[in-house]
């Protein structure tokens, strides 16, 4: 503890010297310095505020194995590289879409986030939703039926999040893996999802009394649920992350993050 004592004495000395030096300063210089500090902080703050109002974030979400990471790298590099495994952390990148690289002129880059689908990692989604300009909900069109209920539940949770409802963040339901002939059509998938969500609507409104917080309810009471009833725009599209047919996804992104 001797050491500590020594240091304390040393520190006291330093602070005394600092104070003296401060007093010797001419006043005008002091004011100028303070003014500069203020102006810069104000400037920085306003930049941040400005940035926040115009988000360029697109969030890829969906069940594990639906192909989000594959799509992410298709968007970024135009290739799915050596393949993917289940993600443990989100992938994030701010880039000009690969298909736009050849284009001339200055293009605004997109901030794309691929949030893992594993249910244990779901809480991560909440970190990114508030800043999203658009949400892409990726569905595996190949293995759709076995995962239908799980996918609907996840989608239901997203569509009822306050951050999504309040800001009316547009959602694209992207039916992936349509390169395979056995893949379901997007119309079929939309209908099934609507049907399943209808059921969740019934059970969830019951549960909310028991402490699970779904901040908002979906659809119109007394009517069968359809995505058209959502306050935010919900559209459906297909894609194939593996073969790189992602034009509809890119259209969606560019609709909400203007180049």
């Amino acid at each position: 503890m001797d050491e500590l004592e020594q240091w304390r004495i040393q520190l006291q000395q330093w602070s005394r010297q600092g104070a003296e030096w401060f007093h010797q300063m001419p006043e005008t210089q002091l004011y100028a310095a303070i003014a500069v500090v203020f102006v810069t902080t104000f400037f920085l703050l306003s930049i941040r505020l400005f940035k926040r109002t115009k988000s360029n974030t697109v969030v890829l979400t969906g069940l594990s194995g639906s192909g989000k990471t594959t799509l992410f790298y298709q968007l970024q590099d135009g290739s799915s590289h050596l393949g993917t495994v289940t993600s443990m952390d989100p992938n994030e990148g701010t880039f000009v879409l690969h298909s736009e690289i050849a284009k001339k002129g200055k293009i605004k880059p997109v901030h794309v986030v691929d949030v893992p689908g594993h249910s244990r990692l779901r809480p991560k989604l909440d970190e990114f939703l508030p800043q999203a300009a658009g949400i892409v909900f990726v569905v595996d069109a190949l293995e759709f039926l076995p995962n239908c209920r799980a996918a609907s539940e996840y989608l239901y949770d997203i569509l009822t999040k306050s951050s999504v409802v309040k800001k009316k963040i547009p959602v694209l339901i992207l039916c992936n893996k349509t390169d395979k002939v056995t893949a379901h059509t997007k119309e079929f998938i939309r209908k099934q999802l609507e049907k399943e969500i209808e059921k969740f609507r019934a059970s969830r409104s019951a549960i909310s009394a028991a402490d699970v917080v779904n901040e908002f309810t979906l659809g119109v009471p007394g009517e069968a649920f359809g995505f058209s009833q959502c306050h935010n725009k919900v559209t459906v599209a297909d894609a194939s992350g593996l073969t790189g047919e992602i034009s509809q996804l890119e259209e969606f992104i560019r609709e909400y993050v203007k180049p």
Partner: protein
Amino acid sequence: MLEQLLIFTRGGLILWTCKELGNALKGSPIDTLIRSCLLEERSGAASYNYDAPGAAYTLKWTFHNELGLVFVAVYQRILHLLYVDDLLAMLKREFSVIYDPKRTAYDDFDETFRQLRMEAEARAEELKKSKPVAKPVNNSKKQGQVQKVGFEGGNKKKGGSGPGSDGGDGNGRKMENGHANGNTDETKVALVANGKENASSNIGAFDVNKLQKLRAKGGKKTDTVVNKGSKVDPNKKITKKNRVWDVSPTESKLDFTDPADQNGDENAVIVAADEGESMMDKEEIVSSESETEEDEEMEKDSKMETKKKGWFSAMFQSIAGKANLEKADLEPALKALKDRLMTKNVAEEIAEKLCESVAASLEGKKLASFTRVSSTVQAAMEEALVRILTPRRSIDILRDVHAAKEQRKPYVVVFVGVNGVGKSTNLAKVAYWLLQHNVSVMMAACDTFRSGAVEQLRTHARRLQIPIFEKGYEKDPAIVAKEAIQEATRNGSDVVLVDTAGRMQDNEPLMRALSKLVNLNNPDLVLFVGEALVGNDAVDQLSKFNQKLADLSTSPKPQLIDGILLTKFDTIDDKVGAALSMVYISGAPVMFVGCGQSYTDLKKLNVKSIVKTLLK
């Protein structure tokens, strides 16, 4: 022979695979490893076993936390490759040199890998030749597990005495993963791993000590790899090596089970325990937040860290951002955290595993400026806890009830648990809750064992005005349940709540009866009712229930515990650890929390507040 070697990012992009090996893997071992081991906070384990039709793989892995990379090796389980850990460590070192986050193709790594593998194989070969002494190794008290593997040679069951040590729920995840093999539970994974390695060392006739010496001599190169950048005394070196990379046959096992064997660190660990304890007490009085205390803690941490370094250098490091976190840096903070969890009634075994997993996820990471080791560790632990407690399956029972209704089948819930935890009371609460949501409920009195049980249930039924199905005592509960379900189908009840006799997890005949009940009736939900008061016993109870349900089942896909109902939650204050222990060991979510005497006292678990309480 290796089957496959993979380097990928934590984001999930494969950066490099060994093309030479090129064997198509059967099933999807890598994804299963990630989903049911690495993401379940079981990455502290030594290896993971994966079974698919026609294949039995063992997987080993190592992380590069700073770069966010994962290295995984897959090999046939029967081969007992000894050089895998070695190889992974070398791979990690070499690859981290050329890694660039912007780059996605690493074809040039093929050549490097070929050399590394040759070196590793040669070293392993050398070891094998030089050791023809057979000497059974039985120092792990947890070896009871080993029998499962089928290598019995020399592995005596040496008192599987540690709480829960031979009750790994094993098949807990079988159903969920479909093809995952039973050994998902870390206990088992680790143990099986150890067991296997032991078995192999018996068969292959190794002598532990000599092997160790030999490694020290012949394997110089490995050692430098392992200890790159660390300047600790030799004892620590060994510790570190064991825990991290080196899961060579014998050493790791000693470490995991018996810290006292690490001669050097013993004292430090004990000291840490003591100080941690007292700090906890203080904190409870002063109620957490006070900064000075944490500073104190940090000071203590650093003191324990290294006696050579003064507190100033530690402080300086915390400001300047330290190079890379090492195991030794994390140890004190982890120890304190483990003690804190244990004061919250988390089972020791679970706290230990969690800490190992958190350590595995932090080691090698850079400490951000102005952060302390302890707060970094705490943040990582918080994330891990949220992850564990977030349900993996849907806990929306009403949704499932409606689904069953569509198929014109009653939804069957079986309540199981040990004696006196409040099964019947909470069954009534669940019934009340269901009634409130316009679900028609029927009770089935299948506790035909304890006298008075049927009457107790009848009282609840009368108060709630619910039909009850009863057949008195002395009847086979499995049959009673079956008849109850038939009755419910006939009269159109939506849900059947089956009350069963409380039973101790070691009571073989009663467990057999329970297994029969579950098998015969295929309930939609097996709900384990457990007391929130329980501490270390939670692990034993749940793992044994699952074990028995799995073992005594005749079907290839036995039904295990699907969910947990925690009772007496109002009586435990901040000792919420049982929730964590139970969820971790079984993988099943907490679906209800009972918190009082009246019918309305049933809640859902609030994950956020539990995590907060646990870390407070």
